[in-house]
């Protein structure tokens, strides 16, 4: 009996250990090949110093709450998203390598007028105003980060996709720069907190480059 019990215990132990190993292995492999599972803070959106709502700024139409109801002001008027073009704030995106985050001054242009109200809670605006008053930069957590050895240039990608005849992977024709962003960044306007949606690993880049007969020479990105 004891032998059988010991054997069962051993097998059970092995199975449990194997299960843990397998889970860890799956997690690591998934992170390696694609994006990590959203557990333990991996893969999820980072916490930002200002909970900037991309939906309000870049979305279109009425704003909805978590249950799908239209958000209204005290007088019953629905709140609508502003529908700003991505390039309104990420000004460099069609000019140079980096998309750039907007300077505090640019936020203040509008938020001089757009203040917090009782029916218009703007969490985090206080942080923005204090940054402006103290003339301090806002330090954001980076959402998309490529390794140091990669030289990604936004400008070239946007230029390509906005040329007539070059269809996006979604099959659409981009007419302005902002049409192209969601290809890699997902529907940012629909995200409460921005997170990375594509793996943006070299394989991801290369798949797309191959699809579009873009150069796949190492020096295209690594120099």
């Amino acid at each position, binding site marked *: 009996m004891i032998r059988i019990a010991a054997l069962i215990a051993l097998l059970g132990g092995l199975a449990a250990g194997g299960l843990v190993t397998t889970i860890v292995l799956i997690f690591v492999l998934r992170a390696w090949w694609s994006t990590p599972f959203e557990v333990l803070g991996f893969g999820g959106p980072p916490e930002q110093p200002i909970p900037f709502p991309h939906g309000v700024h870049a979305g279109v139409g009425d704003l909805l709450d978590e249950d799908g109801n239209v958000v209204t002001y005290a007088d019953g008027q629905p709140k609508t998203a502003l529908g700003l073009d991505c390039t309104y704030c990420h000004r460099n995106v069609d000019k140079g390598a980096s998309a750039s985050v907007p300077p505090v001054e640019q936020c203040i242009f509008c938020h001089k007028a757009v203040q917090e109200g009782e029916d218009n809670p703007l969490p985090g605006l206080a942080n923005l105003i204090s940054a402006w008053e103290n003339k301090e930069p806002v330090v954001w957590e980076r959402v998309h980060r490529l390794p140091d050895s990669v030289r990604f240039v936004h400008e070239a990608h946007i230029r*390509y996709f906005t040329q007539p005849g*070059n269809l996006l992977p979604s099959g659409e024709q981009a007419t302005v720069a902002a049409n192209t962003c969601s290809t890699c960044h997902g529907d940012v306007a629909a995200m409460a907190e921005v997170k990375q949606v594509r793996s943006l690993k070299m394989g991801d880049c290369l798949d797309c480059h191959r699809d579009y007969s873009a150069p796949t020479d190492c020096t295209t990105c*690594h*120099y």
Partner: protein
Amino acid sequence: MTTNRISHKWGMVVDVDRCTGCQSCVVACQAENNIPINTEDVFRQRRAIQWIHVERYWEGEFPDVRARFIPVFCQHCENAPCEPVCPVYATYHNNQGMNVQVYNRCVGTRYCANNCTYNVRFFNYWEPVWPESLRNQLNPDVSMRSRGIMEKCSFNVQRLQKAQRVVEGQQGERLTDEKLKEGNYLPACVQACPTNALVFGDFLDPDSQVSHLKEEHLDGHGRGYKMLEHVGTEPNVIYLKKVDIHAKEVVKGHA
């Protein structure tokens, strides 16, 4: 779909008769490519990094003595000895005629440097360090090579990539010698050289200055030669012989 990339074969013609050994190219290269400061100790240990360097050769004894200078850098060989020995394919030949070093692939075996005929590959024996304030000068377009990475002349591929984006991408034109120059996209050494001893361009472009020089000098009647040609590396760099009024025809040089 736009058209495929226009093909190039980048190369250099070096007129040894123009080179005065002034070292302008050397410092221009250091500044452009984030090459760590070569300290006194680094030189003593024979580990100085200079992607382009000027070699000096003596000939004769006083008073009939000559010193000759030649700028030496990666020859971007067609048949590069460094390429087949790399176990991780960190060095390879690209479709624009350049021998490329991919830093993120490199694992630091140093086989390539040992196999290089021209001694133009340099190994980072240490993590590169700069005083904080000097880091302001570093070129944001060039990767920092960490310890354990091999590096070498890249023909300033960062400038070429930029030129291609601007000229071929935005203007839709072929990148030629003229376009290179007007856009200030020459490699830093070529741009600096006070005597115009270095000429950079596209050997596939029949109108380029390098093609003209190749045609004029390489077919047996001019001054053209390739360095250590007998090794069979087929470099993309053509040297033009030094003219010496005392030369017989070809005189043996020695280190």
